[in-house]
Structure formats: C-alpha cells, structure tokens
C-alpha cells in the first residue's frame, strides 16, 4: 500500500497515476479480446513467468501441423495420441485411422524389432535411427528422433520423422559427380601420354617425308596431326572441367583488344576450314582486362559450334561491338537451332541437345559449360537466342 498523500496536489497526482494505470489495463484486456496478445510475462519475486494464451497455442499447433517433418506423440503404452498430416502422408494412412493405434502396428513390419527396442530405450535417453517408410509413390528415407516429454506430470514420447529424400538425392548427385571428376582426372592424364607419343612420331615422319620431297605422305600426316590436336583439345576440355570443379582453373589477367582477338580467331579458323562463309563485323575498339587465352577459347568454341551445327557454305556472322560500358561479341549461324525447352540447359555440364539429327553430332557436352564458366569468371554473361530449324545466336558481354 502507498502512503496516504497529505496535500491536495499529491491527491490529484495520485488520482492521475491511477487513472493512467486503469487505462493501460483496459487497453491490455481489449488487446487480449482482439487476439493481439500471444503471451503475458508476469514479473514475480523469483523468475518471470510466461503465460501463453489460447491464440498462441493455436499458432504452435498450426506450425506443427504444417511442418514438413512428421510429428507423433505416444503414451506410455505406445498408443498414438497425436500425429500431424506429414506423418500420415509418409505412411499413406489417414490421420483418423492412425490415432489410437499402436505405433508398432503402423510402421513397416521390417522395422518393428528395431523401433520396439528404440522406444524402450527412449524413455531413458533420446535416440535416433534412419529407415525407409513406404510413401505414396516410392519409399521415403527418414530419420526418427525420439525423446521423452513430461507434460503436467504425465509422460509421453515425441517422435519427429524427418524426410531425408532431398538430402539423399543431393548426396547421390554429388557422389556421381565426384566419381565422374575422379575418372576425368585419371583418364585425362593417361590419355595424354599415348597422344604425346603418337604426335611425336607423326611429326618426325612429316619431317622426314618433307626432307625426301614426298609431299603426298607429308600432307596425309599433316591431316593426322590435325586430328591429334582435336583429340588433345578434347582431353583438355575434360581437364578444364576438373579444374573448374575444384577451383584450380588459373586466370592470367592482362589488357587486350577484343576486336583484334576475334579477328585473329576468325583468320585462324578460316585457315583451318573454309566450309562456311564467316562474316566479321567489328565496331569500336574493345579494350578489355582479362585472360585473352581463355576468351579466345570461348570465341573459338562458339564459332566451331556454329560451323558444326549449320550446313556447309552457309553464313556465320561474328559481330563485336560496345554498348553501355560493356563489350559484346555475338556469333550467329543459320543452322538447325535449339528447341526452346532445351535452351536453358545447354550451358550445363555434359548436357547435349537431343534429337534424331542432333544425336549424330560428336561431342562431350562440355564446350558451352566451360565457355559459360570462363565468361562468368570475367563478370560477364553468355546467352543464347535460337529458333529451332532457323539458327542460333550466342552472345557474350564483358564489362570494361
């Protein structure tokens, strides 16, 4: 109790204080009525105590109902006294059927012994186990986490069942990619050694035939050498992928002129094959900072693809320009094009466009993946516009 005020002013102040407190209390009651309060903390002499209201319980209830994990509670006898909809979905049995059943009667028969002993143990210690539930279409790998709960003096077991499908699939994908990468590293090294011998002997033979004036033989070996170089670059592609995956691909940065580089690449490819008409258009002076060897690898990959997937004697337009602080290089062909539904996937590792004609073209499905990675590392973007049956335009943009 407060001391009795002596002065009129004190009485007025005290009255005002009480009025304010009353208004606050009315406000709180109004907020509780409107469902705006989830919990009240009451300060006592010891620890603050938390009182939850019905609306707060509802929130938690919905949260457990809607969560992806299955939730079950069992009484001392192992009877299901509560379960959520995720659990019912995992077992493919309606909730109404599950309530009141013994837990061991609802789980797959193969796991009964294991779970029975787990439940016994869980009254003393929390336990976990992995197993498979039947699911709707296919078995669902799950993790069971069992712990003992004490509510209002009564004891029950709570079981959380986590669906591991997503993790298992991701693990499986990683494992198969790792195996592919390991294979690539060994295969690339082992393939390079015989190629070195073949290339060496071919070059020596070329030298000798040339000395003897046997130009026919020298020419044939020249063609063999070109094929050996192709094989070499396929092996290098495989190695590049390995390096990209392990972050070992080294970039040697320098200033270079993109227009000059593209001109050089076009000339080099024209010397190598004159099956197509390459129309080169350059605008401006695109000075860039980056790895010119890697960018030339991208340009030659795009032009070689254009040659590969368009008919002989058709035109290929290679254009270099500047716009909005970026250098832009595009390679357009008038060949077979790429179906819309496959366009987003062509930059994926090992992805190859499929179709009756497409399947007849050789390749590993690595060129565009490597090119896209190289452009990405230069903070640029490689994109495609294509119409099936009409042709494709590949464009990369690099910031200055």
């Amino acid at each position, binding site marked *: 109790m407060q001391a009795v005020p002596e002065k009129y002013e004190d009485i007025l102040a005290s009255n005002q204080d009480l009025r304010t407190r009353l208004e606050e209390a009315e406000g709180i009651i109004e907020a509780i009525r409107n469902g705006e309060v989830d919990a009240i903390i009451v300060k006592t002499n010891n620890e603050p105590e938390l009182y939850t209201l019905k609306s707060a319980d509802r929130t938690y209830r919905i949260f457990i109902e809607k969560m992806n994990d299955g939730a079950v509670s069992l009484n001392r006898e192992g009877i299901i006294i509560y379960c959520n909809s995720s659990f019912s979905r995992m077992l493919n049995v309606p909730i109404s059927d599950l309530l009141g059943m013994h837990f061991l009667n609802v789980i797959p028969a193969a796991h009964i012994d294991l779970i029975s002993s787990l439940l016994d143990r869980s009254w003393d210690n929390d336990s976990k186990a992995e197993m498979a539930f039947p699911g709707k279409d296919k078995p669902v790998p799950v993790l069971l986490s069992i712990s003992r709960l004490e509510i209002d003096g009564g004891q029950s077991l709570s079981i959380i069942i986590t669906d591991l499908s997503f993790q298992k699939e991701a693990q499986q994908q990683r494992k198969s990619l790792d195996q592919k990468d390991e294979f690539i590293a060994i295969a690339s*090294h082992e393939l*390079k*050694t015989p*190629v070195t*011998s073949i*290339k060496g002997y071919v*070059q*020596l033979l070329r030298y000798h035939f040339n000395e003897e004036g046997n130009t026919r033989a020298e020419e044939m070996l020249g063609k063999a050498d070109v094929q050996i170089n192709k094989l070499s670059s396929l092996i290098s592609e495989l190695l590049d992928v390995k*390096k990209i995956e392990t972050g*070992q691909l080294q970039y040697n940065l320098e200033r270079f002129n993109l227009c000059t580089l593209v001109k050089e690449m076009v000339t080099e490819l024209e010397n190598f094959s004159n099956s197509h008409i390459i129309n080169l258009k350059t605008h401006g002076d695109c000075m860039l900072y980056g790895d010119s060897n890697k960018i030339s690898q991208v340009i030659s990959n795009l032009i070689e693809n254009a040659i590969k997937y368009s008919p002989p004697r058709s035109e290929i337009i290679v254009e270099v320009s500047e716009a909005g602080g970026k250098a832009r290089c595009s390679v357009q062909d008038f060949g077979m094009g790429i179906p819309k539904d496959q366009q987003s996937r062509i930059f994926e590792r090992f992805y190859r466009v499929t179709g009756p004609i497409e399947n007849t073209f050789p390749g590993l499905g690595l060129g565009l993946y490597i090119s896209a990675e190289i452009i990405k590392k230069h903070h640029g973007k490689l994109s495609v516009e294509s119409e099936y049956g009409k042709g494709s335009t590949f464009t990369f943009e690099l910031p200055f």
Partner: protein
Amino acid sequence: MSKIFIVDDDPDILDILKMMLQIQGYQVQATTNATDVLAITDPKPDLVILDLWVSGNDGRDIFTQLRRLEHTKQIPVVFMSANSRLKEIAAEYAVDDFIEKPFDMAYMLDKINEVLTRSRKKNP
C-alpha cells in the same frame, strides 16, 4: 653443339625427343632412370629435360637434389609433364621452363633454344 640430358620413363618419348633434338644438331643423352642424372660427370650437359614423374621418382625431388649438388646446380632444368598443374609446379620450383605433353615439335625446339640462349647469357 649443346648437350642435352633427358629423363623420362617412357622409352617412346625418349626416342622421339632424341630424334627431334638430334635433327637440330644437339648431342643427346637419354635415360629412363631418374637417379642417373645425379651421377652426371664432366663434360656436363647444357640442359636437363626432366619428366615430373619417372618410375617412382618425383621429378621435383630430383630437381631439388640437382640444385643442391655443387657440379649440377648451374645446369638449366626444364620440367616436362602431362600433369595439368605443370605450370604452377614449374613456377613453384622456379625451374628454367616447362614443356606440356603432348608437345608440338617446333614449339618444343623453340623453347629449348630460348632456355639455352638465356643460360649462355647468364653464364658465358
């Protein structure tokens, strides 16, 4: 003419390199046994081409030993390998140069010539 010592455990590669270098008039000594290079006597080679992995011997260890020995420490060394990390390894060990397998004959000969010219300038 310059004398070149080659170490590689693949006899074909030795054969090829020997023929290519002899065409250019180099004197060539070739071995598949990595430790042979440590027993080098006078007249010393002007250059050693060392494969990174020679029958259980790591070319890097051989290189380190060559650099430690008084009578071999001045000889320029070129690493050769199909290892994708060759460039980084060559930089790490500060060898005189490196040749990636498979190599182009003209490119390889240019490289050997460059290293020999540099070495002659350094130790006339």
